[in-house]
């Protein structure tokens, strides 16, 4: 087990290094730069812009800039945002809470709904429910989130006035109920797509298991359908879901770009989008590295859990 862990961690470090290098290069090679936001207003002169580029070190060769960033990052210094003039770590942590709240709620909702629809669809394959669920999932997957978000706002906020049209809470009222109220809209939008995905995975995974020999054997033993389903089929059908969950972990913290923007949710997705439009290199790199670490961590944890949940899997290093 420990050999496996060490090998995976070493791979992860190498991957992170490559990700950071590619990310840094693409970011800096993209045309434009952090100072263009000031150039258009006409208030700052070329001398001002050149001076600030010099002060920020933007006119040094790219490898030098990269090595300096890397050296700082290795010492735990994420750098200072060009836009905020605040440490990147501080900016990132200040946005994580909002994202966690939204993503956890919608993911849990999607998981339970998706699992339920998937299991039911698998058991009653080709029934009316299954057909409707399949069509529904296809539609949900095809709807662009920004469009669906706007429709939700249009119908429930502007039209019916049931839901707030955005924000995390009403200004001056931060109560739990108020926050919950604001959570509904973006949660529905995010959960719609995830539910469709989860239900499809769950359905196919369940279908695979349900036709296995051991399920037939269980039936032949005369066990109740419910017992078979819960104790034999579901346990095995859930195995692939562990991997999917693991791969889903990063999005819990990196947020949803589109939904956060439409619903003015102050999370990581929007921070990332804003930072890109400002070309705020230190912040973008910080979020990029955080996401990369989470992806690697998520898949590692999924693999470990998989081993624990399924005794058939053996780690070669054991």
């Amino acid at each position: 087990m420990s050999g496996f862990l060490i090998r995976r961690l070493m791979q992860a470090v190498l991957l992170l290094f490559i990700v950071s290098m590619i990310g840094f290069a693409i970011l800096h090679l993209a045309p434009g730069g952090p100072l263009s936001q000031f150039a258009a207003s006409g208030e700052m002169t070329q001398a001002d812009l050149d001076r600030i580029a010099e002060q920020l070190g933007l006119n040094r060769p790219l490898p030098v800039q990269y090595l300096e960033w890397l050296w700082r990052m290795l010492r735990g210094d994420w750098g200072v945002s060009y836009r905020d003039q605040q440490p990147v770590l501080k900016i990132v942590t200040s946005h994580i809470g909002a994202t966690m709240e939204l993503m956890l709620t919608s993911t849990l909702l999607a998981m339970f709904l998706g699992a339920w629809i998937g299991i039911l669809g698998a058991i009653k394959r080709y029934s009316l429910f299954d057909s409707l669920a399949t069509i529904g999932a296809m539609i949900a997957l095809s709807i662009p989130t920004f469009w669906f978000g706007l429709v939700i706002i249009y119908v429930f906020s502007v039209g019916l006035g049931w839901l707030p049209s955005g924000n995390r809470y009403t200004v001056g009222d931060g109560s739990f109920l108020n926050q919950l109220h604001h959570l509904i809209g973006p949660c529905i939008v995010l959960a719609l797509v995830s539910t469709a995905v989860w239900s499809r995975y769950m359905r196919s995974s369940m279908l695979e298991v349900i036709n296995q020999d051991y399920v037939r054997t269980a039936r032949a033993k005369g066990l109740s359908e419910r017992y078979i389903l819960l104790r034999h089929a579901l346990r095995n059908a859930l195995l692939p879901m562990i991997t999917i969950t693991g791969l889903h972990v990063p999005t819990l913290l990196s947020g949803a770009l589109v939904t956060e923007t439409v619903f003015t949710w102050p999370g990581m997705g929007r921070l990332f989008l804003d930072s890109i439009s400002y070309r705020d290199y230190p912040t973008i790199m910080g979020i990029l590295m955080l996401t990369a670490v989470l992806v690697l961590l998520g898949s590692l944890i999924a693999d470990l859990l998989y081993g624990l949940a399924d005794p058939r899997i053996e780690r070669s290093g054991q």
Partner: protein
Amino acid sequence: MSDQSKRFSDLGFPLPALHRRDFLGLSAAGVAASMGFGAQAQTAGAVPPPPAKRAGQVVLGLSQEPKAFNPLMPGVEVDEVIWTSVFSSLWVAEPDGTLVPDLAVSVPSEENGGITEGGLAWTVKLREGVVWHDGAPFTAEDVKYSLDLIMSPGFKARTRVGHDLVKDIVVKGPYEISWRMERAFAPYLAQLANTHIVPKHILGKAEDPNTAPFNGAPVGTGPFKWGERRPGDSITLVANERYHGAGPYLEGAVAKYIPDMTALYAQFRTGQVDVVIISGIPANYYEEAIKLPGRKVAVAPSGNIEVIMPNLEHPAFVEKAVRQALYASINKQAIVDSIYYGVPKGTESFAPRESWAYNPNLPKQEYDLAKANQLLDQAGWKRGSRGVREKNGTRLEFAVSTTTGNALREQCQQLMMQDWQQVGATIKISNMPAAVIWGDFYVRSKFQSLLVGTAFRTGLDPDPASRFASDAIPAKNGNGGNYMQWQNTEADQLMKDGQATFNQDKRKAIYWKLQEIVREELPILPIFQYAPLEGIKDGLVGYRPNINARQNAWNMGSWYWAR
């Protein structure tokens, strides 16, 4: 994109450019001045008096997030919403351009003896009894520190225009300061109106003013104190009970960040937001917005002018006749009426209509394709293959670039393309994202022509030297923003003269002449003056659009709710 817009229009919920905003503040909603807000607010009956006791709060809706809070460091318009509320400057520019003293007792002039030796020596007397939000007294040391900080080598100062001429700053007493200028520079008065004074006793002790904790929790002398910031969401300001001026009348103010302009408008409509400023309300909601019950929506003039900016080094634009012909074939009326919903008025000048330097007597452009064709014929541009004109082997061919996703500007480009094709020019549209187009492409004059909204002045002063002078061309190692690379000796001299005199009448005559030259030479093809649609909730008193501020919450300290 346009298909999407149509679909939403059918729902009664039209969708503007999905790129939620143009982050440079030059939004699709930018439309020219018409009757404006100020006039409307002033004529709308008797204004109720301010309340005896502070009450209520106001929620400002912004489509960009204020993020930079040190007022001497780089920032954009939304940041200034916080600066003008938390900090004070020596004096403030009113909508009509008058400078009104704030931290100073009076605005120095040659008449009151504040400016002597032909503009080389300045003395400013400061207001007594002003305290910083933390209780420390404000003195001349703070002013000296602020001016020194701007010029200190390691400090990332926003702009050093004017400040780089200041030398020998002397604190003559706790409430008097003087300095000398290397040369007379009249625009420095206006520049100081937008230079906020920072506290020496806090920032002076910081290890590095660039990254001081102060930059995340500013302390000023303004009508509002820094309250709380919820990153990505909102900033809360609270009333400064010890403010040295009148007000504040509100208990607090919230700057709410709503990145999507449609969502911002929706929240204004549902009442979650009281005031929409800066990027404003998208023009395609205009019809609906002006009819909203309980809301006032109108165009608020801004100092930015929408222009076609030709790169005069591009072979097609070298000749004046070509620029005049292209200008004559722009259908301004159609642009204004069918693209910008009839809100804006065309302009012939680089100066905003409200400026004291604005020249109203410039010849009016007329949409006349026949005249344009004639001009080009006379100049020797002959129609060649496929009707494209040529002269000495140069084809009348160029690209027009603007920010991607700005739907109204894209329609503008289409319209101009059609007209220009009729006079024998062939156009390529080449649009780019904001962070790309306003980078080196713009400042190193790598474009062929741009459709851009920008200001042609120095800070809040009408002096346009940084945009038009021959020594302001960055592509030729100049220092400034003359990106079209215009060179004109007569204009250069006028702009020098305009900087050197403090007499407003003389300066006015100079800038009138300059506007005539620019109108004749057409280094820029002016289309209209920006004026975003801004909205306020009924009952809010004190909102006054000001082209001499960079945003219209500049006087939030004097806002209040009518009872």
